[in-house]
């Protein structure tokens, strides 16, 4: 018993530190509610039914103050356990929206202004989606997660070559650059190279949209690898991740979700959506991306009812 407790101590510590976090959501004003296409009650949906998680990925290097970081990646994930269907919708980081904290700005600033609650409330009000929980992971966290599970197998779609990739994770000079060349084809990626693959956007004609597609590839590869883990792996992973992951999902829900994740075997039941033109178009204020809500909202309501 004592050995078991000691063994699972790192996992328990991580659970206490990072899971089940209380979210303080900015209360939308009546005007906000009118703007929201389908405001929904914030009551939690049980795991047995469908549920939606907002996955947030951030630059959390020394350029930013902790908890005032931008979210470089925002992916809505809806899981329907009964049909074993998963839908992933990547939200462009530069999308110009009405923030839940007030005013209009790029959506990647929502977390910076109000933390995960504001990020959830902003997505919820603008897209008309009920979000059950969030998971936030920092740059270093993604690297550590992938290394902790022994790397991932990915078919990289093309050579990702970037002469001005930010050297801000391990460098003493967070505004410096490094050259990156992730070569194309099937390969086993460690954390650093997976990060380079999903983060680089200078060499992609589709910029952030191309990057979103690569992020979804890597997410699926992590899920594939996670299926091979056993509960006894959790302490090592927990100690590797450290404080680089935060979530509102409680430890009991995590335990309920693990077998569920393993049961999703059919890749054809995983739908990936990236809001390319005509759903969005460039030329917004301050280099932002403008949403075509007339197209986006029906799409979102179809897959995130």
């Amino acid at each position: 018993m004592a050995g078991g407790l000691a063994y699972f101590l790192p996992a328990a510590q991580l659970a206490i530190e990072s899971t089940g976090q209380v979210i303080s959501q900015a209360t939308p004003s009546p005007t906000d509610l009118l703007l929201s296409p389908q405001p929904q009650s914030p009551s939690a949906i049980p795991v047995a039914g469908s549920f939606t998680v907002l996955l947030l990925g951030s630059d959390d290097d020394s350029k930013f103050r902790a908890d005032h970081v931008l979210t470089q990646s925002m992916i809505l994930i809806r899981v329907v356990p009964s049909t074993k269907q998963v839908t992933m919708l990547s939200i462009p980081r530069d999308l110009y929206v009405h923030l839940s904290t007030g005013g209009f700005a790029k959506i990647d600033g929502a977390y910076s202004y109000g933390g995960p609650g504001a990020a959830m409330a902003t997505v919820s009000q603008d897209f008309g989606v009920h979000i059950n929980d969030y998971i936030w992971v920092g740059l270093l966290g993604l690297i550590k997660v992938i290394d902790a599970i022994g790397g991932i197998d990915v078919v990289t779609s093309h050579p990702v070559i970037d002469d001005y990739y930010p050297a801000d994770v391990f460098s003493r000079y967070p505004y410096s650059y490094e050259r990156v060349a992730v070569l194309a084809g099937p390969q086993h990626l460690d954390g650093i190279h997976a990060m380079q693959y999903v983060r680089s956007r200078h060499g992609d004609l589709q910029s952030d949209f191309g990057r979103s597609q690569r992020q979804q590839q890597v997410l699926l590869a992590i899920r594939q690898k996670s299926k091979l883990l056993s509960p006894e792996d959790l302490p090592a992973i927990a100690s590797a991740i450290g404080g680089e992951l935060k979530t509102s999902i409680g430890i009991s829900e995590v335990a309920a979700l693990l077998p569920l994740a393993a049961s999703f075997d059919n890749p054809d039941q995983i739908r990936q959506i990236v809001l390319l033109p005509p759903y969005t178009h460039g030329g917004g204020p301050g280099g932002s991306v403008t949403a075509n809500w007339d197209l986006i909202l029906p799409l979102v309501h179809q897959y995130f009812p």
Partner: protein
Amino acid sequence: MIARYVLGVSLAVVMLVFGTTTYLFLGTRTSHVAEIPQKPTVATPRAQAFSMSGTLYIIQNGALYSLSAGRFHQLTPEAGWTMPSMLPNGTGLVAVRRFAAYSDVYILNRFGQTTKRLTSNVAPARNTDIGANHWSFYPRVSADGKTLWMSYDQPKYGYDVVMSVWALPMGAPIRQGKLWTNAADYSGGDVQPIPVRTGMIYTKYSYGPDDKLVGQLWFTNRAYSAGRALTTPGEDCRSPAVSPSGTQIAMICTYEKQISYLMIASWNGTTLGARKGIITNQLVAQPAWAPDDSGIAYLAPGAPAGPFQLWFLPKAGYAPAPTPSPSPGASPVASPSPAAPVKPVQVTTNNGFDATSPLAWSS
């Protein structure tokens, strides 16, 4: 009082032993997904159930290894080595050494000793722009030994850094080289040149009809000409390897999904024939034909989602069985029972080879 003391000590001992045992037991129950791959030489000498012909050169963690007669030998330190390719006379190899911001092509002898550097891609000392460095990848030497083919990141325009295929006289500076392809902007570019008798085959990355980036094999016989596509965008193919007879090409095709198939097709010098999938049930990379035409080596995970191992598919696993022509007047005989399908051989189990590096194989 003594009995209570003895009981307390006994319980403490039991707790210590049981707790430690439980801790150790739980430790043994972890999966092996994060196990660090071994060096190939750790298993040497090991009785190999299977030994491939000739000498195969392969990369793990930036070190060049040879595999000959079932034994691995480490030829270079772990120092960024990748993409070996045989010199046509078989006396050595060309290979890339990759540094943080650039890479160069070197000639190595068969023992892994560097004999010459063929490119100079580091930025000039006074230039502080990191973009002034260059990448050279996928070097190949022409059959006459006079020309070095490679992918090189010139021309590039600001953020639009793409690889293009270049040819240059062996040992000559890049200014004497010739740009052979016109890479599509923001695509990753043109890579993996394979000089053939009739011209050059390469992989071109470009945006397909559905705006996804895909790989296609192309053939050209003129510098800076478009040439012709050998595969369709929907096949999404890469990593061409020409058979020793020059009549077949092996390649990796993904059909724009997170899968990969090892395909082979006949090759007449200008066009590809019908495709045949020979490995379709696992992620597969870097096919290499045996010089004696005995089969195809390739890299694929040894376990689901695991590091890539070395595999070998004997020729009987993909070549059509010869059909005996019946002689006139011969009496009909019962047809032989169908032979058992030939399965691929997993040569290594826990090595984690570099799946982005082609294999080199000499007789």
